[in-house]
C-alpha cells in the first residue's frame, strides 16, 4: 500500500489557509465544541461515501476531503481571529 501524500499535505495546507478566517462568537448563532464534533463525524461519512480518487488505492475514503476538514479545524484552533 503506497500512501499518496499529495492530497493529504495540500488538503491540510488549503484547509489551514481557509480555517484561519473562521471566527465564532459573532451574531446570535452559537456553535460549541459538540457542534464541531458533529460536523467532523458528518464530514467523515461524506468522505467515505465520496471514496478516493481513481488510481488512489491507499484508503477507501477521500483523503483530500478529510485532510481539508482537519485543516480547517486546526486552522481555526491555531489562527482563528476573535471579533
Amino acid at each position, binding site marked *: 500500500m503506497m500512501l*499518496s501524500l499529495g492530497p493529504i499535505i495540500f488538503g491540510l495546507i488549503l484547509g489551514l489557509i481557509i480555517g484561519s*478566517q473562521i471566527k465564532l462568537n*459573532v*451574531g446570535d*448563532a452559537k456553535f460549541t465544541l459538540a457542534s464541531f464534533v458533529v*460536523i467532523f463525524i458528518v464530514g467523515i461519512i461524506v468522505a467515505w461515501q465520496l471514496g478516493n480518487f*481513481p*488510481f488512489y488505492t491507499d484508503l477507501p475514503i477521500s483523503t483530500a*476531503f478529510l485532510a481539508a476538514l482537519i485543516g480547517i479545524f486546526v486552522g481555526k484552533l491555531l489562527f482563528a481571529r476573535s471579533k
Partner: protein
Amino acid sequence: MSQGSMILKIISLPLSILLICLGVMTILGGHITPGGGFQGGAMIASGIILSVLVYGLGNSPLELSHTYVEVFESIGALGFIIFGLIGLFLGGFYLYNVGTDLLNVVPAALQNVLHYPDVTNAGIIPYLNIFVGLKVFVGLSAIAIAFAGFKKLVEESE
C-alpha cells in the same frame, strides 16, 4: 444586516465547511477527475458566499479580510507565473511540465522536488490547479463580499 432565520443560521456554517472541503477535494483531483482549480475555487467561494449571505456582512463566521484577499490573489497569480517561468528556463517553453519532464532536459533533483507526490505522474499540474483554485476562491469571495458591503452602505445611507 442580518438576513437569515435561526434555522438558516444553524445549518449554514456546517454546510459552508462541507462545501469548502468538497471544493478542496475538487482542486486536488483536478489532474485525474473532472474539475480542477477554477471549479474547486468556485465551490469554496460558494461556501463563503453562503455564510456571508445568511449571517450578513460583519456577523459572518467566514469572512475574508482585505489583506487576506490581496495576499492570496497575489500568491495565486505569482505562483502560476513562477511555475511557468521555471518551465521556460529549464525546459525551453512556458509552462513546461518540469515535474514529469518528458523531454529529459531537467536535472533529476529538481524534477523530484517539483513532482507532485501521488501515484500518477502529474508533475506540476496539481500545483497549477492549487494556485488557480486559490486565486478563484479569493476572487469570487471578494466580489460577493464587496456587493454585500455596497448593499450595507446603501441601507445605511437611506
